[in-house]
């Protein structure tokens, strides 16, 4: 079987990490999907990463339009708590503030780089589509 349906079938009712095009990481149970990889996740938690910290935000049910999906990974339940020692759990507030600072820095850098590229006659990479 070589269809999207066949590929997603074995992931149904499994705990997955979903990475979206805007960089969000959602962890939840895959309950439904279609041929475009539109997805429904249940008991979803959004995991926010910044620097070497992370925080979880309970979110509930997600219906994600397929075009926003970057990848879908099945979590090995035996290893799910073995996070790399480089990241530590922190409060939402702390991670959120750090993330905002990182975003600002990144946006500033991108703007500078795009300006320079444009000066040289280049259009920046994925200027039509943002990917993280």
């Amino acid at each position, binding site marked *: *079987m*070589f*269809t*999207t349906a*066949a*590929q*997603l079938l074995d*992931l149904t009712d499994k705990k997955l*990490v979903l*990475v979206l*095009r805007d960089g969000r*990481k959602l962890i939840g149970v895959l309950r439904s999907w279609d041929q475009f*990889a539109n997805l429904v996740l249940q008991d979803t938690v959004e*995991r926010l*990463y910044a620097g070497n910290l*992370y925080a979880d935000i309970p979110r509930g049910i997600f219906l994600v339009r*397929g*075009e926003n*999906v*970057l*990848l*879908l*990974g*099945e*979590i*090995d339940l035996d*290893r*799910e*708590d*073995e*996070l*790399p020692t*480089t*990241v530590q759990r922190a409060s939402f507030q702390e991670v959120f503030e750090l993330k905002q600072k990182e975003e600002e820095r990144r946006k500033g850098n991108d703007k500078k780089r795009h300006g320079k590229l444009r000066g040289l006659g280049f259009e920046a990479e*994925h200027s039509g*589509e943002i*990917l*993280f």
Partner: protein
Amino acid sequence: MLFFSFFKTLTNQTVTIELKNDIRIRGTLKSVDQYLNIKLDDVDVLDLDKYPHLSSVKNMFIRGSVVRYVVLPRSEVDVGLLEDATRREAANQAGKAR
């Protein structure tokens, strides 16, 4: 559909996929569909420290639209055969257009 058929011949081979956001993932190519969505088994994320959210993932579904490159095992690709198939497909397309 040529590349779809081509990728089908590479199932169960170890490939490295680079995504448009620079993540590189090595794994066994389990399946591919008409959009070139890819399923990988026994995944190994290169530079895992930068992507801690992928640390406990064992297999993954990657949407075809976010793939930048697929690195293939050289020995598994018959370039001559692929070239012939390309020309056959092009001839078919030209035939249809007329």
